[in-house]
């Protein structure tokens, strides 16, 4: 109880990190809802890795073309964001365009993950001077969240959430029945592109802030959990976001209280929630079948 009171107090030392965690936990599921609905879950594995490769590539390209960059400057985060976002968007558009060929989709995503992971290491190895520092940018370090970076996160994630809410009927239509969207003259390609842009921005910022593991975890696990307990689209999205935010807070609490690594603690708690809901549903079905007989 003391720990809980401590982390919610205004003077808490890691307050920005806590708020950042909850923001990631809240917004990633809102975007992840579309990963689940469009059956693109495995892209949620590959894209954070592509994002990390983009960060490593950006710094390598900068060093080769301009010179050594300066660490701990704001421009460093912008450079990382540029690399992350551009690679994520290109990877997402290519994989989404090839998604029609369902028979090879898993192979493509698996290959993308492997290539991106290898490329990240190779780019890092080519820039040994920056290697030690860049590792933090690549794996995410939410504990190092500062006031300015939190403001950036809040602004970007807030914009993503607003756009998802404002255009939810368009995104639903192009996701559920693309033919119907085309017949309505709704420029399905444009709406797909906007959705992919928001996915790319969320993943890029999520990876830089919290790392690929936490980003993937919150993209996928809260929506999968929410899908099992909701029957309507709006409720599905809001429940996924709430589950993500609560899990992020609870994970932060557990990590702080028991001195655990933050990201894995959050993902483990989210997974535990999914397991509990799955079990409860299974037991409920068994009970109903027993009552019927």
């Amino acid at each position, binding site marked *: 109880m003391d720990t809980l009171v401590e982390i919610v107090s205004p003077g808490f030392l890691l307050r920005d990190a806590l708020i950042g965690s909850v923001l990631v936990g809240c917004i990633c599921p809102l975007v992840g809802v579309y990963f*689940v*609905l469009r*059956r693109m879950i495995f892209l949620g594995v590959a894209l954070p890795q592509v994002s990390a490769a983009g960060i490593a590539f950006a710094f390598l390209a900068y060093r080769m073309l301009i010179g050594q960059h300066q660490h701990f400057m704001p421009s460093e985060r912008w450079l990382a964001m540029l690399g992350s976002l551009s690679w994520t968007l290109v990877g997402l558009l290519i994989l989404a365009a090839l998604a029609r060929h369902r028979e090879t989709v898993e192979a493509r995503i698996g290959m993308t993950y492997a290539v991106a992971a290898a490329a990240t290491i190779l780019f890092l190895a080519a820039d040994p001077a920056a290697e030690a520092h860049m590792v933090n940018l690549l794996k995410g370090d939410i504990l190092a969240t500062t006031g300015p970076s939190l403001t950036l996160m809040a602004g970007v994630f807030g914009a993503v959430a607003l756009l998802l809410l*404002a*255009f939810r*009927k*368009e995104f*639903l*239509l192009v*996701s*559920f*029945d693309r*033919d*119907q969207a*085309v*017949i*309505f*003259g*709704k420029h399905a390609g444009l709406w797909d592109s906007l959705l992919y842009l928001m996915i790319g921005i969320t993943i890029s910022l999520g990876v830089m802030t919290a790392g690929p593991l936490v980003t993937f975890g919150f993209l996928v696990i809260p929506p999968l959990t929410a*899908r099992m307990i*909701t*029957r*309507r*689209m709006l*409720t*599905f999205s809001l429940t996924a976001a709430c589950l993500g935010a609560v899990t992020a807070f609870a994970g932060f609490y557990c990590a702080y209280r028991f001195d655990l690594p933050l990201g894995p603690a959050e993902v483990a708690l989210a997974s535990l929630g999914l397991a509990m809901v799955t079990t409860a549903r299974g037991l409920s079905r068994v009970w109903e079948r027993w009552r019927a007989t």
Partner: protein
Amino acid sequence: MPHALLGLQDVSLGYDGRAVLEHISFAIERGEFLALLGPNGAGKTTLLRGMLGLIPVLAGRITYGFDRSTSPPGYVPQRDALDPIFPLTAREVVLMGTYARLAPLRPVGRRQRQLAAACLEQVGLADLADRPFWALSGGQKQRVLIARGLAVEPNILLLDEPTAGVDPGAAITIMDLIARLNRDQGLTVVLVSHHLRLVRSLVRSVLWIEDGRISKGATEVMLAPERIIDIFGPL
């Protein structure tokens, strides 16, 4: 074809530049009830999708007697084309039909909700509005999709095998509903079907598609017993 609701003039349709149908010309009049029939793979769905603008025309042109941008056609796809992972109630599926006339940023309002409720009432499913779409029977799902097509407030309703995979009783209910919409409301209807018996009893005109060619005529002529024997052989 000055008064036709929809006209095809020497149209070729296909995929990846290869024509499945060529030199197709016919017109659909306002209030017509037309069935597209033919063997499997003849191009019935291709023709339907071409009329809807879902596949590009390879040659010729399709003309419309209405403004598609403000009044798009109603479309009822096969229900298997839709993914059951989406958590949607029957009402929410029907509401999607109202999106046709809603600009981005305009929310769904009372008018759209009342229209969706009225369309569900028309198909006899008002009491199932809040049921999950995927929990409905095959016939009920198909009627919800018809309601969605009606919520578009269309000039013409196009249906792709609306009785596919449903039991005979449900198939009769669905076809009766469609026939009633055409007869009582004057709605122009085009449907793809394999149910010859139901088509013969309810539909007024038939477009037969085979070997890339079409022939159109009144049902009693196109599906006369001797013609059916020609097509399918004697029983």
